[in-house]
């Protein structure tokens, strides 16, 4: 079954909850309602043979509503739809940034969902152990949000030791004085960050 047929099957299974498929560079993506994501993942795995979860990622469309997008990449290994690929996306609003966990369907979703939570603050209902994974426990921000500045925000380091003391060169001739800490609500990253280029913002004239 090719990807458009897979999307048609999804639409028949969940009428009114599955959007139109879109093709770009021979890949098909489809948007589904966030309520059915676990059922859709189970249907894709059990009935359509897309039994391989490649990746879960998330996108922050800051300024749009709903703000976030969770992106699942499914593929088939063996079975009826060997080597078919389908991208399933679901939109999540900022006020209720949560989506059902699919760990009960794919065990491999565990770490992917923890990473999305860590980096973008989207919670996964029913996840068995939703903790931060790349940042440390107790870190206050979600760094991949678009309103988090590239150079970071000051925060307490975990525990005592390594980073709590003044470095030996601090105040010396080759050390720049510490910049005033940026705050959320300051000018956007792309204005303060010299590497970011206006080309990143097509809405503004270059």
């Amino acid at each position, binding site marked *: 079954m090719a990807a458009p047929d897979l999307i048609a099957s999804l639409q028949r299974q969940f009428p009114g909850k599955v959007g139109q498929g879109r093709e*770009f*560079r021979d890949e098909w993506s489809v948007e589904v309602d966030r309520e059915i994501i676990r059922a859709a993942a189970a249907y894709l795995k059990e009935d359509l043979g897309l039994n*391989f979860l490649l990746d879960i*990622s998330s996108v922050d469309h800051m300024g749009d509503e709903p703000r976030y997008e969770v992106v699942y990449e499914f593929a088939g290994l063996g079975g009826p739809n060997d080597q078919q690929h389908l991208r399933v996306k679901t939109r999540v609003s900022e006020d209720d940034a949560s989506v059902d966990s699919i760990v009960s369907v794919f*065990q491999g979703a*565990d770490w992917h969902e923890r990473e999305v939570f860590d980096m973008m603050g989207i919670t996964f209902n029913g996840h068995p152990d939703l903790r931060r*994974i790349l940042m440390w426990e107790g870190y206050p921000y979600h760094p991949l949000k678009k309103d988090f500045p590239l150079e970071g925000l000051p925060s307490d380091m975990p525990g005592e030791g390594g980073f709590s003391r003044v470095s030996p060169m601090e105040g010396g001739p080759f050390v720049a004085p510490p910049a005033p800490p940026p705050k959320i609500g300051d000018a956007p990253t792309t204005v303060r960050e010299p*590497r970011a*280029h206006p*080309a990143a913002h097509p809405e503004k004239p270059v």
Partner: protein
Amino acid sequence: MPETFVEFPDSMESAALHAAEADSAGKGHLGQNLILNMGPSHPSTHGVLRIMLELDGEIVIRALPDVGYLHRGDEKIAENMTYNQFVPYTDRLDYLAPLANNVAYALAVEKLMGWTVPPRGQVIRVICCELARISAHLLGMGALAMDTGAMTVFLYIFTEREKIYNLIELLTGARFTTSYTRIGGQIRDLPPGFVEQAKEFVEQFKGKIDELDTLLTRNKIFVDRNKGIGIISREDAIDFGLTGPDLRGSGVDYDVRKARPYLTYSEYDFDIPLGSVGDCYDRYLCRLEELRQSVRILEQALNRLPDGPINVGDGKGFLPHKDKVLTKMEELIHQFILVTEGIQAPVGEVYFGAENPKGELGFYIQSKGGGVPYRLKIRAPSFVNLSILTKLLPGHMMSDVVAILGSLDFVMGECDR
């Protein structure tokens, strides 16, 4: 003194007495479980992986891996620079195979752009990928051998890796942080003498694989430490999304080079080795055989290297040659626009996965137009492969943990990004 403290038995008699007491109390074991913190700085964790192990005697009953000690925020960085500027960051993902990462990233962005590199460029990339695969597999096997008591192999493989590094230095000017590809091609063509030297390396390397084979495959200690240890079932391997030799060791026939052929992989004659049990030994055997298959691909690629351009012909997409930049007006303008604004990508989203030494390295790129990615997600094979540890480690001896970590062959630079 804490209430739970149990006095350590000081003689065989008192130990027997303690054991009998524990038995009659229905606990089944003496004393308490031990929480052991392994890593983040432990030789067998090959980097900065930390695992909290709960031990009952020498048996692991619970394992909690803790990753992120090498997190640099590569994905955030990528959102703030042009596509070509991100190439050096890909060197530092799987730093045992930087060339393969460069190629995978370039292919992902080229997929977004809709570009195809000319045949000579593609064959050069195949040569790069396979050299990187040999180099990474050699280190993976050497480290596994060292962790399981065979020190010699680790020293032998470095002799071979040195030769590969010499080839890479000849090709890219750098031994480690290669940054060889650009979006749409390579920074330079093969230098004179490269093909001959590479052929010479491949010819002598065949004997070295046999040497490795002889040293390890029937080595009693190595076999005892690896056979039947860390068995990953076929179903688990698929469910956890493992890729690379870790997946194929469990007998799942999935190699991106065969499944969704990219570059010119469909034109080469090579086999995909599969394991049957899914233990550490099978994963080792897969890597050993993949060395032989990489040698086969390299031989074919070096012999069929076509002539012609190595980069896409899009004048406004790929950096023009330096001579022309300095002498021609139009190329100078193109160079200026490309360097300052970057490649103008269309609106869209792509996922591209390439078969890297550790598994499928995938890039999900969402573009809203312009010269920088709106979102670039890296699917790191080491990250996904490590997620099975929680399930895999319990029930094994403490010393088996070392063998399992070695056989999973991960790189923390890629896992933590």
